[in-house]
């Protein structure tokens, strides 16, 4: 008899945890200051929504869009999801945000399958793998679900929302090095993981730009090292760079984790090496400025990137576009986007739209933007 | 000051299936060495564990210095000055000798251990014992004898008033034993009361002033040593006449079943030669630590011999594993039934069929019905008292457990069976049954090797007896000429003595 009581107890525990988390912590609080406890309701839109039964395509206004980031715990991704949610709310749609447990394709596929099972209407995904998501996304599209990719592309998507053209990003990075070294000098690249699709795309584009015009002939690209988007590894790699290459002038880190770590090391060892790359203002506050390791840096507005992804999904959902090259659609905020051709050589396999040019942060505007993201 | 420093009245202790102590009395005077004699399994060790607080008595009371006491843990016993030196030394192998001595009562100075002072005192204690090791050696590196010295030093360091020594001389050379006697006498002269447990009459005559005999967990008598003869002792320890207990069938001995030629394994045994024929029961006896179990384990393939050869039916064999031994018809019933013989939380049926599972399987698939049938016949053949085949082995008495192990051995077609201490911790009724099974197996032409340290059993059951001491065979006695004294004398013949001793045959 005793064992049966214990078994019942077990079922109760499971039921309680399941119910308690039913609310789920799917979205960061809408308000600016992320409070510590999870918000109770799955969709955090301000306007009260009647109970959303995600019947396949019910009335126009109760479409449900979902965004899948690379993984939990990356602020850039948090901001992107936050933008996506606001845009969806503004269009009166429901939004589901999912952060996979780790940066693996299988975690994202599991989430995609869950969303398909829930019968969402649109999925935007920042892919962890150039091939793996294709079959899962294809299955979603077979169920009539609209699929777009953002931040990094993968096969199986109908459109790639590209935060900034790969070449535009590479161009600003090369220009930063050129400017910081005064035209000639040695630089090295601190990247994220060896398999990050967007990192490899920008690095390939930088190589092409430097090769094509001799203006950058005197820039010597020493090496490329990988910090795995982990603080300690990036620290170690940066310290090794400083030790192995005494003549190093500039470190380029096209990853928000890498640039912060590199700037920290340079600051702590007060080395005169400069650090350029792509970084989040809120991370880099205190590291960007005139006599600081990072004179200036670039990035795009992740919030804007999330918003455009939502608009793209809406455009596909209500038939404004079918994703063919040359087609255009306008978002409810009035900006029109033209779909341009893919760029397979730098890893973009689908037709794409460019959200905008990389935005420059320096000593005077870092303070203000650090509040935004 | 009451006449007795320690008194036990009507102590009874029950274990599942066996009554270890049955209304036992015991009196110990201050400044006295009191010997405790009795067969294995007579309850001596349990009595010691009750005095030292490891076990709590079910009935009866313990009186210390005239006051009734009850020890809930060994720590409490130690605090009032009761220290024990166990037969199997419980030491910390990774720690130094000093720490083993002072563990629990370290020398502290405002919170910190005084290593120098402790090492010095430990070294002093070791010197008084004239031991040949250093206080900073690791306990794990010492021999059993040396570890026993450390235990004695431990008792000295606690200046215990009552010291219990359980078979202390078993693993010692004569020289070491002599030194132990002097130390024990010095302890007694310093006022300590000593309880000395031993098999060896010699220890008792040399040291003790009074002796108490136990048999089958019952108190027999206490007398002054001077008016006790060896015959009285054996009579007290064994009780019944020898012949009546042992139904030894007279059989004609067949040809040779197993022979070992100068088998040796460094650190355990050296140049062991012996043989057993079909239908013969051969005894192998000696004191604790003589290496008998190690020899049998090497024969059975559990451990590897460094040199020597083994012949089965005259044919040279190389046995590297237990299953190879069983395939060749050699079986072993281990000394430690609980841990090596049986799976306690299994039913007796599955325990019996464990050794020969392939017999009950076709293409690897078990036929449980056939398995149960065989288990039932064998269990009944050896007379196991159990309700069903599925009674757990842990629920059986010592005797019944041994019968299950014997039943398991019968599943293989064996022609040589080694039984290591077959009747240890078994009540008298079951002992007789086991001897009968032994007789029956011998009758069927099986060669039986019985390893035992119980004199009556060896004398009563064996056709030939080998006696071992410190890893060597010190003598072989035929059934007729063997007596208790001769065996004991051979069991203590150290290598040193045997080289010097040139006569071949010792007169009684």
């Amino acid at each position, binding site marked *: 008899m005793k064992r049966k009581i214990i078994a019942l107890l077990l079922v109760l525990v499971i039921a309680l945890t399941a119910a308690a988390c039913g609310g789920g912590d799917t979205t960061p609080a809408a308000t600016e200051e992320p409070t510590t406890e999870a918000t109770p309701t799955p969709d955090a839109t301000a306007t009260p929504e009647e109970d959303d039964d995600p019947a396949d395509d019910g009335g126009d206004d109760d479409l449900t869009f979902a965004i899948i980031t690379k993984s*939990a715990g990356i602020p850039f991704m*948090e901001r992107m999801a936050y933008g996506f949610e606001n845009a969806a709310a503004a269009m009166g749609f429901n939004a589901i945000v999912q952060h996979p447990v780790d940066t693996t394709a299988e975690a994202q596929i599991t989430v995609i399958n869950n969303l398909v099972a829930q019968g969402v209407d649109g999925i935007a995904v920042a892919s962890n793998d150039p091939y793996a998501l294709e079959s899962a996304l294809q299955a979603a599209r077979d169920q009539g679900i609209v699929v777009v990719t953002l931040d990094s592309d993968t096969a199986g998507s109908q459109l790639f929302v590209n935060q900034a053209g790969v070449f535009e990003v590479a161009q600003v990075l090369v220009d930063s090095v050129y400017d910081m070294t005064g035209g000639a000098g040695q630089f090295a690249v601190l990247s994220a993981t060896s398999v990050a699709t967007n990192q490899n795309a920008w690095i390939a584009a930088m190589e092409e730009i430097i090769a094509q015009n001799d203006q950058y002939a005197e820039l010597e690209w020493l090496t490329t090292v990988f910090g795995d988007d982990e*603080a300690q590894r990036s*620290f170690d*790699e940066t310290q090794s760079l400083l030790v192995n290459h005494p003549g190093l002038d500039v470190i380029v880190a096209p990853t928000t984790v890498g640039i912060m770590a590199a700037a920290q090391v340079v600051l702590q060892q007060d080395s005169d090496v400069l650090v350029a790359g792509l970084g989040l203002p809120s991370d880099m506050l205190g590291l960007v400025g005139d006599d600081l390791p990072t004179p200036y840096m670039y990035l795009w507005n992740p919030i804007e990137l999330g918003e455009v992804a939502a608009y793209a999904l809406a455009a596909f959902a209500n038939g404004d576009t079918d994703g063919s090259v040359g087609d255009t659609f306008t978002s409810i905020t009035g900006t029109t986007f033209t779909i341009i051709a893919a760029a397979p050589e730098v890893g973009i396999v689908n037709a794409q739209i460019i959200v905008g040019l990389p935005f420059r942060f320096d000593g005077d505007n870092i303070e203000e933007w650090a509040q935004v993201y | 000051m009451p006449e007795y420093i320690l008194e036990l009245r009507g102590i009874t202790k029950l274990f599942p299936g066996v009554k270890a102590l049955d209304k036992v009395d015991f009196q110990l005077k201050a400044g006295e060495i009191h010997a405790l004699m009795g067969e294995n399994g007579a309850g001596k060790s349990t009595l010691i564990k009750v005095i030292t607080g490891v076990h709590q008595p079910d009935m009866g009371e313990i009186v210390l210095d005239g006051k009734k006491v009850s020890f809930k843990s060994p720590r409490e016993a130690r605090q009032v000055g009761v220290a024990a030196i166990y037969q199997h030394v*419980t030491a910390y*192998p990774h720690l130094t000798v000093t720490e083993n001595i002072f563990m629990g009562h370290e020398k502290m100075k405002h919170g910190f251990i005084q290593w120098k002072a402790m090492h010095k005192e430990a070294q002093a204690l070791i010197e008084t014992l004239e031991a040949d090791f250093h206080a900073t050696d690791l306990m794990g590196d010492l021999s059993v004898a040396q570890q026993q010295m450390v235990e004695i030093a431990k008792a000295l360091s606690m200046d215990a008033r009552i010291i219990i020594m359980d078979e202390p001389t078993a693993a010692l050379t004569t020289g070491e034993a002599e030194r132990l006697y002097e130390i024990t006498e010095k302890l007694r002269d310093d006022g300590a009361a000593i309880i000395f447990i031993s098999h060896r009459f010699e220890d008792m005559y040399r040291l003790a002033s009074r002796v108490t005999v136990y048999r089958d967990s019952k108190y027999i008598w206490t007398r002054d040593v001077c008016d006790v003869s060896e015959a009285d002792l054996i009579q007290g320890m064994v009780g019944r006449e020898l012949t009546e207990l042992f139904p030894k069938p007279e059989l004609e001995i067949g040809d040779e079943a197993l022979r070992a030629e100068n088998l040796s394994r460094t650190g355990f045994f*050296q140049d062991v030669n012996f043989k057993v024929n079909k239908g013969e029961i051969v005894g192998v006896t000696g004191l604790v630590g003589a290496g008998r179990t190690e020899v049998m384990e090497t024969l059975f393939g559990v451990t590897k011999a460094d040199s020597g050869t083994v012949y089965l039916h005259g044919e040279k064999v190389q046995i590297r594993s237990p299953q190879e031994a069983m395939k060749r018809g050699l079986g072993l019933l281990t000394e430690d039934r609980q841990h090596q013989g049986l799976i306690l939380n299994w039913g007796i049926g599955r325990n019996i069929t464990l050794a020969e599972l392939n017999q009950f399987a076709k293409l690897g698939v078990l036929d449980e019905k056939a398995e149960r049938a065989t288990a039932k016949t064998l269990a009944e053949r050896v007379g196991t008292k159990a309700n069903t085949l599925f009674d757990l082995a842990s629920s059986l008495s010592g005797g019944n457990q041994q019968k299950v192990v014997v039943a398991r051995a019968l599943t293989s077609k064996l022609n040589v069976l080694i039984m290591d201490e077959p009747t240890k911790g078994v009540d008298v009724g079951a002992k007789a049954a086991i001897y009968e099974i032994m007789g029956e197996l011998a009758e069927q032409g099986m060669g039986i090797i019985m390893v035992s340290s119980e004199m009556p059993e060896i004398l009563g059951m064996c056709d030939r007896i080998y006696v071992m001491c410190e890893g060597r065979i010190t003598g072989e006695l035929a059934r007729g000429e063997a007596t208790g004294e001769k065996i004991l004398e051979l069991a203590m013949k150290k290598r040193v003595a045997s080289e010097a001793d040139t006569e071949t045959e010792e007169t009684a």
Partner: protein
Amino acid sequence: MSLRLKKLVRTREFSLLIVLILLSAVIQWRNPHFLTATVIDSILRNYSYTILMTSGMLMVLLVGGIDISVGSTLALSGMTSALLMREGILPNWWMAYLTSLGVGILCGLLVGIVITKGKVLPIIATLGFMYVFRGLTFFISDSQWVGMMQLLEDFRDFSQGTSLGVSNLIWITIVVYIFVFILLKWTKLGRQVYAVGSNIEAATVSGIRTDRIKLFVYAFNGALAGLSGAMFVGFYAGAQNNIAMGLELDIIAACVIGGVSLKGGQGTIPGVLLGALTIAVINRSLSLTGIDPFWQQAIKGAVILAAVMANVLMQRQSVRRTLARREI
């Protein structure tokens, strides 16, 4: 050579020192910058908390247990104090360190209670807690990071600062190592830790409260993980929720290389210190010597297996020596 010196040379720690020196020599040969003050300082500074936590793991292994939840404990305690700093609840740096330490102790106690009272195998209990604490880190931080500027000024200065030319983190590690060395060698509690690991039956019979010793050991280990949480967050000036993933493997590797036996009862502070330094050098040297960084994990795995097997061979040899000495 005097007996004392001969005894010292044969100890395991000495052979470890030789291995470490040889390793450094090879690296120095491949990259002359290796044995410079900055690199040494950066190694000690980057790996100060790994070395610190190795002493905690030593005590857990000494009682025959294991704790693979230390990485997650570090993350949880570091994140907690970072979040509290962000909300302005923690006034100054040592309060932040205390909070982190407190969370670590709490985690350690929880692990200890489940192992001693719940009778759960240490590997299973800490495997479960590894995921529980990591999940909690994400849960309380709502998957957010705590940025550099959201940490207290003096907290960052202390963690990155130096006194008398040596980084404060290294000072903390030195102080804790001295404390554990004294605890293990000179206090009753320390000797009881060895006793419980060496022969738990004898320990129980001689009246040592083994469960209480085990609980203390796991709580102490949690405390060091908590302390390391604050050190990590302060040094890297930011609290992410995926920090110290897999750190427990480095720490166990350091102990195994340092000659600690997993069955308990065997292991010393000098040994694990050398083991931790070896692991730090291996982790750091690969990028210095240009060996393909992808080899690092494989090398570490091989080193653990080699060290463990070497321990066994040494033990077998000493057993054979004692047996041969026993005159028959």
